């Protein structure tokens, strides 16, 4: 039986939206998430800010720093998740780095995240080899820990990673490098998805480099879902949650055309 996250990405081309928690503040961030869901996002990633986001480009680095400066904390982010859970059924994931989670306590975080209605975690600095720092605690609370594959992974790793992944989706990095709208896709991405397909039991989502309707469509041509982060956060910075709404709608329209 498919889990809730995977189900939300099945039957049509999925759209996953990333928003930094507490950016520009918690109230506007909450409006932005709800607007994104209303405009057609299927799954939400809430970014729990970290001071040293190794996998992020300038836009998300800045959003993270601004959110921290404005007073973002893990507790407040869990409360945001809880409020969102009252208002939407969309799967909610927390995307962060291992250090803030470890500082909170992995077991405690898993318990409180589950209680707040979170469905899973995405930790880009926790590769397959290190998953045991969090996997046990998360599994016990029914939370998914999303697996990554990259253009550099190679078939053997892709096979092993995809075969082990049981819930959520496979996060396929569209290119080497950090988050950020520029840069487009790595040529290897299409092959990467095709290889992953042979081994994965889960939907495959493409992220890193989806900037607009055109790149979203490109992703949807071979993957099951597109993940959008920097471009969305940039819209939020420039035009508030209203801009997020029209941006997500434009992606949704394009994805629905791919069917």
């Amino acid at each position: 039986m498919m889990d809730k996250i995977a189900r939300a990405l099945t039957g049509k081309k999925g759209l996953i939206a990333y928003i930094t928690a507490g950016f520009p503040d918690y109230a506007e961030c909450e409006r932005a998430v709800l607007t994104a869901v209303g405009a057609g996002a299927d799954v939400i990633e809430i970014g729990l800010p970290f001071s040293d986001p190794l996998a992020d480009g300038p836009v998300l680095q800045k959003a993270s720093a601004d959110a921290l400066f404005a007073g973002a904390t893990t507790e407040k982010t869990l409360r945001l998740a809880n409020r969102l859970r009252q208002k939407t059924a969309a799967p909610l994931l927390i995307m962060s780095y291992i250090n803030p989670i470890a500082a909170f306590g992995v077991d405690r975080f898993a318990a409180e995240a589950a209680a707040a209605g979170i469905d899973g975690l995405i930790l880009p600095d926790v590769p397959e080899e290190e998953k045991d720092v969090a996997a046990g605690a998360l599994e016990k609370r029914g939370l998914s820990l999303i697996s990554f594959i990259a253009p550099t992974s190679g078939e053997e790793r892709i096979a092993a990673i995809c075969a082990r992944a049981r819930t959520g989706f496979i996060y396929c990095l569209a290119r080497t490098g950090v988050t950020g709208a520029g840069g487009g896709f790595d040529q290897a991405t299409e092959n990467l998805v095709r290889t992953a397909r042979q081994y994965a039991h889960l939907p495959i989502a493409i992220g890193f480099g989806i900037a607009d309707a055109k790149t979203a469509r490109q992703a949807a041509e071979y993957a099951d879902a597109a993940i959008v982060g920097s471009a969305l956060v940039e819209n939020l910075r420039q035009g508030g949650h209203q801009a997020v709404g029209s941006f997500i709608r434009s992606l949704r329209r394009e994805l629905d055309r791919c069917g």
Partner: protein
Amino acid sequence: MIKGLPDKRGKFGGFGGRFVPETVMPALLGLEKEYLKLRRDREFQTELRRWLRGYAGRPTTLYRADRLSKHYGRAAVYLKREDLLHTGAHKINNAIGQALLALRMGKTRAVAETGAGQHGVAAATACALFGLNCVVYMGEEDMERQRLNVFRMRMLGAEVRPVASGTGTLKDATSEAIRDWVANVRDTHYIIGTAAGPHPYPLLVRDFQSVIGRETKAQAAKEGLRISKVIACVGGGSNAIGMFFPFRNDRSIEKIGVEAGGRGLDKENAATINRGRPGFLHGSYSYLMQDGEGQVLPVYSLSAGLDYPGVGPEHAYYHEAGAARYMAVTDDEAIEAFKLLTRLEGIIPALESAHALASLETVMPGTAPGEAVIVCLSGRGDKDVEMVEKYLGGKR
């Protein structure tokens, strides 16, 4: 007894590991495989030794500092003169080793981070020597306080990219270097400058720097010295682990790591083991200066090379295992030691190394004549004279 660490997963006790994006995992696994092979490869080791001798200036002397010893009136103080190496610091040991490794792996480009600029200069030098393209990331604040080294790197053909994000110091330069590496991993090798980062970096940097301790051990044996203590400053911990590792099973020899106490341990400092808690940064689990939320804290030291909120995982392990002792000295104490060595011995030490020297104030009273205390003089202080002049000016 310290066992043969790290283990297969790159862990020193519970510390270390590989907390990096999937994109670079295959590169780390490849690097590990290649390095473990070259580690036992006679030809590679011979080639490395040849460059260290003929080019870098090894072996460095173990110098008996008589006037400094007399000043304390106890044990004899010996200085391991890494400051005499080409480019002026121990960093060249590692830079040459890693550049050779990069060549073996067919890489054409190298990225490095730098704080004081010493590792940046060493990396730029090794890249010039072996014909690799070189990009060095350096915090904006550090570029200002270490201008001389910025010029040197540029002369050597390296591109120096300023890093303004975060605190504009070594931590942020390291993040940017890793981001570049993640993006360009197919043709690029990351020459990390200290014994930190994801496995296998702490291992290979330790190996390349262990020449310091190995030579010291042989030189001391030849002179029949009875070493009671070996002392080194700890930024990320490369010169210290290079000195400590070959002595790891000599239990009668105390290993003392000296961290940057900045303005004081209750004020701003960069004394990671003394003041931090275990956490994850730049790919490894070790001690970290962080707040209760797990956000990395800004750190401070007058010495740019020690101004880093993390520390290599092997030191975290030595600390917990009681295999080494980690203390801290303040900026003021380091400056006093800087002046003292300059006046008494005619050797201008790097501010980083001056931290190791400053520990003698508290260490020496507990020693006795007939013992030898070894201080790793990790680098020369030419790069720091402007800073020191300004600092003293402000004090007057």
